[in-house]
């Protein structure tokens, strides 16, 4: 009887702790969104998202940040696409073709985790060094490649974590039908892991569009619309950074409005991809 009481008290204790932890996280998230909205919404206007910065924009005059929005969208889509093209085959390869070489695979995973942990400014500096070596100037392409490099480990490991959970029985069943390993990869593992692959795309896209340090040196910054891969372009994180560091109150508010735009883009992409992956998700074998 006494033992039961202790166990019940234990249960209560852990439930309270878990509830508190969840509340703290949700509260923090709400506060971040609230503070961005409170400061950003009043400054958010149609001209902000439909116009280029006009003369004196950064001193509080008219204009918008369409250039940075487009620059970021191009950059993030391009980088996510490239990282996916490279990352998906890597994740499939280490899970199917290297299935039995556990030590090698763990080594690869360890290296990817280390790469994941390297701060983005280091990727920026690396990209910058390579650019200088080839005599390139800062451009959308240079930024895209640098960001690709920086999100590849995220892409691979996120897909990998899902493919790891594909039951060995499914691999055996597919191979027993006389599938080659590559058929197994693209016809079965891809479908089984689709929800995780979408998550990987989102994670990578979020990192790509939100990172300032890796694009600081590599994409540069301009007030023009991005029209060529080889021209410098503005990006949203840097637009936020430049506006936030202004002493003028109006400009600072616009920084928050820019943050609202960035958040909305990520929200929109998340919703679209979640909905579009639902079709495949229902086929998943549990």
């Amino acid at each position, binding site marked *: 009887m006494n033992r039961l009481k202790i166990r019940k008290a234990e249960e209560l204790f852990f439930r309270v702790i878990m509830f508190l932890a969840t509340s703290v996280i949700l509260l923090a998230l709400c506060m971040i969104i609230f503070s961005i909205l409170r400061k950003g919404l009043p400054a958010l206007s149609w001209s902000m998202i439909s116009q280029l910065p006009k003369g004196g924009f950064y001193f509080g005059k008219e204009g918008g940040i369409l250039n940075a929005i487009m620059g970021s969208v191009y950059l993030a889509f391009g980088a996510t696409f490239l990282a996916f093209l490279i990352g998906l085959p890597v994740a499939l390869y280490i899970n199917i073709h290297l299935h*039995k070489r556990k030590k090698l695979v763990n080594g690869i995973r360890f290296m990817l985790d280390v790469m994941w942990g390297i701060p983005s400014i280091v990727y920026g500096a690396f990209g910058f060094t390579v650019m200088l070596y080839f005599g390139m100037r800062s451009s959308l392409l240079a930024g895209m490649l640098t960001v690709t490099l920086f999100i590849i480990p995220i892409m691979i490991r996120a897909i990998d974590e899902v493919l790891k959970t594909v039951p060995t029985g499914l691999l055996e069943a597919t191979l*027993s*039908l*006389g599938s080659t390993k590559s058929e197994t990869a693209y016809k079965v593992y891809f479908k089984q892991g689709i929800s995780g692959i979408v998550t990987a795309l989102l994670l990578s896209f979020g990192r790509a569009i939100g990172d300032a340090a890796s694009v600081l040196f590599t994409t540069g910054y301009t007030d023009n619309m991005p029209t060529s891969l080889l021209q410098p372009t503005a990006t949203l994180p840097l637009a936020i950074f430049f506006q936030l560091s202004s002493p003028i109150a109006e400009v600072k508010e616009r920084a928050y409005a820019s943050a609202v735009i960035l958040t909305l883009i990520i929200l929109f992409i998340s919703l679209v991809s979640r909905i579009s992956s639902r079709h495949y998700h229902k*086929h998943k*074998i549990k």
Partner: protein
Amino acid sequence: MAGKTKISIENLNLYIGKQHILKNVTTRIPEKQITVILGPSGCGKTTLLKSMNRLTDLYSNVKVSGKIMIEGEDILHTDTDITSIRKRMGLLSQRPYPLPMNIFNNVAYGLRISGRKNKMVLRQRVQHYLELVNLWDEVKDRLHDPASSLSIGQQQRLCLARGLSVDPDIILADEPTSALDPISSEVVEKKFFDLKNQYTVVVVTHSLQQARRIADYAIFMYLGEIVEQGEASEFFSNPKQELTKSYIKGLFN
């Protein structure tokens, strides 16, 4: 032994790391009969089954020696592509693993990878194989539903249909009914009876009753070795080894 030999295994030894899983296994699997591999858990019966289509290649640190001859070809030392060897053997595992796609495509998958892409032909063949496993009537109105929405018993029959669709001549089954309800079990078991006219069937089971019901030839394994093997009638009525006798009496499991 009556009938032709389909698979003959000679001195098969299999190690995983330092563990000796299969010890000097030598046996013959008769053609177009049901061979049952019996034995307590962990005796290596599943490993023996999986080495027949070289799924053991997927294990890490595995070392195999000996011979596994299928119609005269040693599949352990062959230039023939392993995928074409595997295609000749359908596998039914302990719990069903349908593919992450709809019911129709589960059966069509095998047909497609063997090059049949014509839509009309696919429809006909899919229906044919689903009928063969008594599943057609249950799923004909929901062919585009996810395979995962079927019951476990239906999934196992779907897997059997899928396995048959690539036109194998051998069916390997690893405790195919252990996760099923009694009715589905019976359907699968009966199916094996029908199939043995055309296919060589190898079933791993730890159910003695099932073994008695379906076996033409029986192999009893213990701790990685074959203790006794022979015609089922002889094996069950008149076992030679003490170990087999006590196993058949149900003294241990």
